[in-house]
């Protein structure tokens, strides 16, 4: 067996599949293609892939149904290919257990970044790395310290909780609800305003230009994403 990461791609459109197979193969992934939900489930069982990429619109079942079925017995990272039709369906499929999504049309770089983040998270799920780095930001999870360009940045306890929740899913989307649960541990709709304010404060402390965030980006209507930037 090779040491290449194995990806099961469930997509019924032949052109899309050709593009995904070719692109992923060119970037060193071992691709197993499935044209239907049933084939996809079989391939996931058989191959125990490192990552699953699922199109939401499949001929025999809804992509979100496939996500739910997979989640019954597997923690394999699932990335959903969705179309731009409002944030509601994205949140729904994330709630069912999908780890992330890309919106069609997407460029290959975007999908590869999602796959890398998912793999990274899977490897770390046994215990997060004690030190997180992205761009000029460093988060020391052991000593609860945040540094920017080597200088310590003072953050409040809530801001730190928020940052930690984002770091633990670095590179992946984190929904508003997940963040609210992580910080306040309770569900209250009005808190979303506080969430936005805390995100704003973190940006002012960590971003070069808070009005054009590169580190903590917004997923409109869904949540936030902490990007992993090269130095």
């Amino acid at each position: 067996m090779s040491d290449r990461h194995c990806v099961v791609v469930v997509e019924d459109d032949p052109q899309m599949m050709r593009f995904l197979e070719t692109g992923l193969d060119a970037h060193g992934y071992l691709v197993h293609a499935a044209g239907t939900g049933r084939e996809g489930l079989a391939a996931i069982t058989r191959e125990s892939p490192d990552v699953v990429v699922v199109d939401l619109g499949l001929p025999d079942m809804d992509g979100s149904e496939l996500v739910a079925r997979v989640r019954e017995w597997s923690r394999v990272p699932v990335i959903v290919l969705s179309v731009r039709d409002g944030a509601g369906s994205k949140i729904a499929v994330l709630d069912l257990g999908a780890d992330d999504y890309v919106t069609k049309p997407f460029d290959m770089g975007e999908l590869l970044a999602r796959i890398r983040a998912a793999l990274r998270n899977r490897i770390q799920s046994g215990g997060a790395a004690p030190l997180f780095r992205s761009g000029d930001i460093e988060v020391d999870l052991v000593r609860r310290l945040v540094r920017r360009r080597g200088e310590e940045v003072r953050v409040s306890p809530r801001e730190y909780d928020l940052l930690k929740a984002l770091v633990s899913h670095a590179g992946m989307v984190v929904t508003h609800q997940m963040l609210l649960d992580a910080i306040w541990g309770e569900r209250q709709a009005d808190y979303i305003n506080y969430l936005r304010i805390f995100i704003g404060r973190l940006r002012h402390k960590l971003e070069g230009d808070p009005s054009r965030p590169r580190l903590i980006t917004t997923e409109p209507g869904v949540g936030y994403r902490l990007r992993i930037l090269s130095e």
Partner: protein
Amino acid sequence: MAPSTSLRHLWALLSVLAATGVAVLTGPYLNPTDKMLIYLVAVLWSALRFGLRPALLAAVTAILAHNFLFFEPRFAFGLHSASDAVAFGVFATTAFVTSGLVARAHDEAERSRARELELAILYRTGEEIASSTGLGDLVAKAERRLGQVLGAPVRVIADSGGEGFPLCTANGRVGALLVEGDAVSRIDEGLLHALARQIAVAIERERLRHEMEEATVRVRTERTRSALLSSVAHDFRTPLGSVVGASSSLLSREASFTDEARRRLLQTILESAQRLDRYVGNILDLTRIESGAVEPRPDWVDVEDLVGAALDAVDPVLDGHRLVVRLEPDLPPLRVDFVMIERVLVNLLENAARFGRRDGLIEVAAAAGPDTLVLDVFDEGPLVPEDECERLFLAFYRASREYRDGAGLGLSICRAFMAASGGAIEARPRPRRGGMSFVLTFPLAERVPNLEGLDE
């Protein structure tokens, strides 16, 4: 309420009886001619209170009673002397004439009171049905109102067929009244007709308004559809043409391309596809707007977050422009649908990048007033004359010749989304700065949740 007819006659007779009593009691103190005056009072009183017929009845009975009781021969009808005959004649004439005059005045007053009442009923009915919104509401209001007037349940049928009391206008029958029992006979026929006519006219007006609205919608839909078709033909095919052309060139065996040429062709394919994607997005938004499916889901939104997300989405398009973001510190949060307003900003920024001068300035500025927040997207693009600005927001409208590509959908979508969010959008030429501003105005929420205690 006025007493019924027979009751009024009875009252007239009673008044004569009372006069008789008084006349008998006065006995020898008054002579028979004087007693006539007592009867006259009773007759006049009847005329005043009960109208002509009871008054005449009173007059006749008074004359007979007086003649019977007080003129010689007493307790028999007949006249004894010439002077009695004269007195009798004068009494009879006076009784008839004065009761007639007084009663006419009385009836006149009654009639005008009734007319006044009718007018009041018609006025109130007219006022009530004029305030109706739509046919259903009109029918409900008319039914309630007529129910009050007739004192019985009434159904208004706004349909030209069927039975019942007809509702007609000059253009024919528009409906009918169904009244329970004999309530219709209880009110004046003229009043009933007037009411029926009033309601009929209102129904007709409501129908015409409805038809006109439908016609307007039809025309607008028709216009949108044909504009959409011609737009699809042009705006879909142009980028598709580039994709097909560039990719088939790359696949052709005969041609040999330099790396640079290959890159340019691939870039063409990518940009055309992105343009198609934007266009499809706009068409979808437009369809949602046209079908009335724009339901904003308002949420507390931080302006910096909003601007950041929009800039992130248009990042590749902004290449080759100088971007300046000026946000006032501590802007209050907005209560809007994040995704919707982000689409508005993305559309404006894409326009700014497309129409703005190469290497020109694009500026996003936000400032809060006492009860509004203003977002301004400025670009150094061609100026649109002041009087043309409003038309920029019409679907499929393209300003002057400089605005060649694009379907002219973006701004109409922006306006619809802003309207759905309770805000406004305006285009403002800024000749001194050499460019166009698109200004978004949002009302500020009165109640903003505060942060105290949450950061513990």
